[in-house]
């Protein structure tokens, strides 16, 4: 088994996707190496799909390079760091743990996540946080159109700008944007940024590694709750 030790003295197991099939790499990550603190490095991901998905223990995985769709999908407990860009649906339906991407992410990042933290150091494309159900997402760059569409719970923090139709048909999820958010989706409105929200922002920014950002620069957006029940007055929004 190739490997070595990281700076913290942990044993590192290297999984080389140019030498092993995806199934074997995932089986190893999902499998018996569940001792807390186990550290894996995945090299040569070559844009592979469904890499490190379905993890369910407190391991750490570092992926060296760009990944395809659904990297760290349905993650539980594990910490996955992608050193590169991630394709569609990174950390989709995450339950807990942390997924961090040093580059950009494609559409539907963090889709339907119930828990955990997704940090995107670059930009996120369309539909970031779509149908979010409780996870937290911090995007250091911009997010694309229809982000947080039908998001139910959880938080999206955007340090850059938000694309069109932000928070369309939003339920009880929270959105914070530092840059521009000029085009809000149906039933999404700007709300007052109170101390409890600043506290939440400070907490998330701290976890994301950008505690130097001034939380008072953010605007908060949430649901106007006008679309919660079918009413003739809402016909234009349907």
């Amino acid at each position, binding site marked *: 088994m190739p490997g070595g030790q990281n700076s913290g003295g942990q044993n590192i197991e290297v999984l080389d996707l140019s030498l092993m099939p995806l199934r074997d790499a995932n089986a190893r990550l999902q499998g018996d190496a569940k001792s807390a603190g186990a550290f894996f490095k995945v090299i040569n991901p*070559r*844009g*592979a*799909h469904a890499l490190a998905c379905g993890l369910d223990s407190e391991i750490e995985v570092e992926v060296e390079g*760009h*990944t*395809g*769709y659904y990297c760290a999908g349905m993650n539980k407990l594990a910490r996955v760091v992608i050193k590169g*860009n991630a*394709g*569609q649906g990174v950390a989709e339906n995450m339950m807990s743990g942390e997924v961090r991407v040093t*580059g*950009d992410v*494609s*559409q539907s990042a963090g889709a339907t996540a119930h828990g955990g933290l997704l940090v995107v150091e670059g930009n996120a*494309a*369309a539909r970031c946080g779509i149908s979010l159900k409780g996870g937290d997402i911090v995007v250091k760059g911009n997010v*694309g*159109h229809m982000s947080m569409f039908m998001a139910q719970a959880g938080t999206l923090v955007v340090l850059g700008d938000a694309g069109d139709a932000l928070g369309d048909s939003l339920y009880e999820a929270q959105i914070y944007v530092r840059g521009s958010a000029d085009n809000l989706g149906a039933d999404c409105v700007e709300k007052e940024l109170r101390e409890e929200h600043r506290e939440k922002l400070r907490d998330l920014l701290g976890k994301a590694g950008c505690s130097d950002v001034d939380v008072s620069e953010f605007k908060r957006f949430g649901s106007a709750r006008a679309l919660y029940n079918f009413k003739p007055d809402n016909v234009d929004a349907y």
Partner: protein
Amino acid sequence: MCGIVGLYLKTSSLKDRLGAMFTPMLIEMTDRGPDSAGVAVYHAPASEGQVKITAFHPDPGFDWAALAEAVSSDLGVTIEHHANDTHHVLISGGEAEALEDAIEDYDPLLQVMSAGTTIEIYKETGLPEEVAEKFGLKDMKGSHAVGHTRMATESAVTTAGSHPFSTGLDLCLVHNGSLSNHNRLREHLATHRGIEFKTENDTEVAAAYVSDKMNAGRSLHEALEDSIKDLDGFYTFVVGTRDGFAVLRDPIACKPAVLAETDDYVAFASEYRALVDLPGIETAKVWEPEPAVVYSWGGRA
């Protein structure tokens, strides 16, 4: 529903390696399109006053020399031709349209794949790897190439129904997605704009739309901007012209797209994994094209 790839060289130093760089890109998209594959390669422009036509005949024993002789004597032109498996490239003087008609009239099974000065289109049913092997794609040279692997949605799995579609001189278009208003648009283009359609495929309508706009004087970039308003449905397009290359995604942008650019080339693929073997990809600018934004290189602005 498909995989699409494109490679546009910004410097001539790599042109001998176009096919070698492009072939793995196409093959990597097999999962997205196992039914058929096709490529448009832009290389070896015909000399002044000459046109280049790629034609297909399903019969490997078809007598291409007899075709060339018949068409040359009909039209009073000299035709050079060379084989590439089931496809033949014919280079001739005269008008492209007259040549295309004469070729297709000669035998009902003959199909013109492309016409222009620079474009050659090769497409066949079967796995992308087999198609690439059949036509010797990896040894091809040129300035740019556009390719497609097809998972057929609503029209037949045939050679003619494979992408790229070419509806104008040196123009080709490939598509990932599914259009929803192509039937009315096809009727309009056929009835009022004199365009002859060869298939029931939605992508052929998109190609025809773009070539019609360009014939009316719009640039490639402008024609694609027009299409955002007129084409409904889901699409990512890659378009090639004699000296241009462009990418467009629909405003909803559900279908995937990745662009990579270095000083030497621009590469497009449905998924990043198709780009991993390109030289210098580690340091290339890699990004996802924005919805409803036309990206174009070369050609008339």
